[in-house]
């Protein structure tokens, strides 16, 4: 076993160690708990970077240990280019949220449990991206759900959090069950739970079964992506959750659905099986895009506006994947990353706004532009970013997605409509920005400065967004390699 194979499981095990320490150390203050959280999460960032050179040589790094031998289930992890992209996105978002969390109120009581759950949430996601065993995949997949539900349940806002978290759990669990049925069908048919083994063999399944499983996978993962009309859990869950959790939910967890679609139906079955779904994915993407944007336009609660914008943005991603072209899918993967950064930035801005104004309705906030310049600039960059303004990242990915749409030859009209639909994104984004930072000055007794602990991570994310947008090269090459992992280089 090489050095790389040995340190790979550290991505999941070191956060587990962090969780154990946090559970034992009950008297940890928030800062102490945060340090443990950030350090253990930092390892999850450090290890993939250490593995990077190995990745360049081999393409994948795998680790496997028998777990339940009589069920052919093992603790297998695999790092490939596709999982690397999602893993880094998720870990970075979690780190940003953990740091941001230090500046706000959430988790001042029981901080050790709070950070332990954040770590578990992130562990669920990194495990999901790494798992090379369908049993293990599902366990991580549900861990992600359970941890996030607990975070909303305990630290969420308002009395409604119990109902909201229940709704969130049950609806997303229905999606998970569809995924579970498909996973077990594969497992039963090939008597192995190893994903890489399944990818080698799955094309031998009867075509009807392949189609059915693809359907289940796509619907199941679309629930997580909050594609219309499966999005109903999202607005409430995002609104009620404490801000750091909202950031992770919106920026990282939603895209796990994307990863699922790419890793399962796309990687398992030949392109002919997926072809019939392409147009439906594009239509669902378009509908989600427009619906999310319109709802964002109609909302008054600033947190809900950004929450609905996620529904809209996931629509672009699904559309990109539906094109079934290399460009479209590269665009979708890049969009996952850019969306994560932009969405984290926007929610951080919203968090600061709520903390300085104590107000969530857009009508009651206004004219803050001159008072909080750093906040204003961050928000401006975020808003321009989400509207797809060059050179900010989303411009690149949307370009690719639309190019994919035209390439695909499935329906030019749909692509044109999606392109035109993006105008709604610009409208709600500008309304959000204009309503808050221009116009009539809202209540007088506002603090003179936005809290520094919140502003610093926000500005950092903003700078990161600018850099990413200007240098899309590495990300694009990773995305191409990632698609190579799925399609064996051919596309």
């Amino acid at each position, binding site marked *: 076993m090489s050095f790389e194979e040995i340190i790979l499981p550290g991505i999941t095990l070191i956060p587990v160690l962090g969780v154990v320490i946090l559970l034992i150390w009950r008297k940890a203050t928030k800062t102490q708990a945060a340090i443990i959280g950030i350090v253990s999460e930092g390892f999850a960032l450090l290890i993939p970077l250490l593995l990077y050179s190995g990745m360049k040589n081999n393409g994948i790094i795998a680790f496997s240990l028998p777990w339940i031998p009589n069920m052919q289930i093992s603790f297998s992890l695999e790092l490939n280019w596709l999982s690397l992209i999602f893993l880094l996105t998720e870990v970075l978002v979690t780190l940003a949220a953990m740091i941001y969390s230090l500046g706000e109120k959430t988790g001042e009581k029981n901080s050790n449990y709070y950070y332990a759950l954040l770590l578990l949430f992130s562990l669920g996601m990194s495990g999901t991206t790494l798992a090379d065993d369908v049993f293990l995949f599902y366990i991580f997949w549900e861990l992600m759900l359970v941890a996030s539900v607990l975070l909303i349940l305990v630290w969420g806002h308002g009395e409604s959090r*119990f109902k909201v978290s229940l709704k969130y759990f049950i609806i997303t669990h229905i999606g998970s*069950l569809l995924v579970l*049925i498909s996973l077990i069908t594969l497992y039963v048919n090939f008597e192995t739970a190893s994903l890489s083994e399944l990818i080698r063999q799955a094309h031998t399944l009867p075509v009807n079964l392949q189609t059915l499983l693809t359907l289940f996978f796509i619907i199941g993962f679309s629930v997580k992506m909050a594609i219309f009309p499966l999005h109903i859990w999202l607005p409430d869950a995002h609104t009620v959750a404490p801000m750091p959790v909202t950031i992770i939910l919106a920026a990282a967890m939603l895209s796990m659905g994307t990863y699922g679609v790419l890793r399962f139906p796309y990687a398992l079955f030949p392109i002919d099986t997926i072809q019939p779904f392409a147009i439906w994915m594009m239509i669902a993407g378009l509908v989600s895009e427009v619906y999310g944007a319109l709802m964002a336009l109609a909302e008054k609660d600033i947190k809900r506006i950004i929450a609905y914008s996620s529904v809209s943005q996931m629509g672009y991603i699904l559309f990109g994947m539906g094109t079934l072209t290399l460009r479209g899918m590269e665009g979708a993967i890049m969009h996952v990353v850019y969306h994560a950064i932009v969405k984290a930035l926007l929610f951080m801005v919203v968090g600061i706004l709520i903390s300085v104004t104590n107000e969530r309705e857009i009508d009651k906030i206004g004219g803050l532009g001159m008072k909080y310049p750093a906040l204003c600039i961050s928000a401006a960059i975020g808003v321009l970013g989400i509207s797809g303004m060059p050179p900010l990242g989303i411009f690149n990915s949307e370009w690719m997605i639309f190019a994919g749409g035209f390439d695909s030859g499935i329906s030019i009209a749909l692509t044109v409509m999606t392109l035109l639909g993006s105008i709604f994104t610009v409208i709600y984004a500008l309304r959000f920005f204009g309503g808050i930072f221009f116009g009539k000055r809202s209540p007088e007794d506002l603090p003179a400065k936005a809290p520094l602990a919140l502003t610093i991570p926000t500005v950092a994310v903003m700078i990161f967004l600018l850099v990413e947008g200007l240098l899309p090269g590495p990300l694009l090459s990773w995305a191409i390699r990632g698609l190579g992992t799925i399609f064996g280089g051919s596309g």
Partner: protein
Amino acid sequence: MSGLFEFVLPAAVLFAGAFLIYLVSRVFRLSNRVEAVLTVVILIATGVLLILQLQGMPGLLQNPEAVFGADPPGGIVFVPNAVGTFILILGTAIGILVSVYSGEYLSRDSRYLHYYPLILLTLMGLMGMFMSVNLFNLFFLTELVTVSVSALIAFRYRREISIKAGFKYLIMSSLGTMIMLLGIYFVYRSTGDLNLTGVLAKPDDLTRIGAACFLLGFSLKAGVFPLHTWVPDVYGHAPSAVSGLLAGVVSKSMLFVMPVICLRLGMTERELGIYLMVFACFNMLVGSIRMLRQRLLRRFLSFSSIAQTGYLMFGLGIGFYYQLDQAFSAGLYLFLVIAVMKSLAFLAAGIFQHHTGTQDMEALTGIGGILTMPALCFSVALAGLAGIPLLAGFTGKWLIFTAALATGDIFAIITLVIFLISTLIGLGGYLPTLVRQYLPLTESQLAAKILNNPVKSPGWMLAPVILLALLVVGIGTYPAPWINLVEQVMKWMLI
């Protein structure tokens, strides 16, 4: 005759122990706790003997029967039953925990003298039911279980509701044994023999009617729809410790006795499979739907228990209908995890009631802040029953899924869909109940307020509950040895 000793020794220990404990406690006026400890000692001895028996199972199976008394037809025949031994080991283990728990739980009762012997007799009767294929013997032992259990249910006889529950169980269960008696009549009339040493050579209509009678009788005792009506009343109002033992092991094990007798009487495996699968659907749906609207905590658990009986029947049904060995293992594994989770749930619910005097779910809102540890363990049980990964229930769900999908048959798939619907509805029951424990208190939620401050439960009650909770997590995270064991037991059974 050889091998007889190993067969009957554990049962003999239990039987002798029951009377010995009663006598010793009576004569020396032992306290509740001392009697509990004595019971634990006897149960541990029985458990060790049973484990030895299970280890020696391959040897035992080469000597497939032992005769007690004269030769058949006058004598009585025992056969080794690997599944029975396995279930009894589990039953003994849970019996140990229940006895320890009762050391505190019965602290306010005066009549504890009878309690522990009755537990021993119940287990002894159950053990006998698994081993005996002599119908008279079976009838006798079934009645032993019925009577002991009824007495245990009505243990707190000063409360009218306990008497009602005990009486209901007695009536319903006796009805079951009566039907079995009728079955015995048919079989005897046809064959002139009560010893079922193997599958009947020439099953005729009469023996098949006899088989149907046994099927009905066991179904009633297992709580199969529509004969499940006694379940909520009994589990809801019996002492919690008794409910834990009943719901966890005793009732559900009837599903594993049933095939032994029915198949020997000429019922085909397909028939049994269809019966189990069709009624499993009813059990799963009725249990999970009725669970949603319960106000009393233990009634809620009872309906979830009805649903779980359905899950077990589903597993066994697939096994019989499609001759699928892995489905039997799935069923037995499910039995194991349900026994652990269910007894955990009942014991934890008992702690709530012990301290607050109520089992009204509304009144118990916010109990998590007061009885922290029991509430945490109860949450583990509920999450496990809901099938959350890394807890014991999930692997069971996975195995059942696997078995059903492996058949590739539409009948199994339809049943699987119903299973899925049932687990989803179940989530709607388990999760709110779990969450409710941690809700902030309002004015009306008094029970939790009675205690007001965090209460430390006595170790006698807490230790078994914590142990079971650890087991739920342990089996869930590392199921490999348990699955191995279950598969091994099933292999012996199916030879």
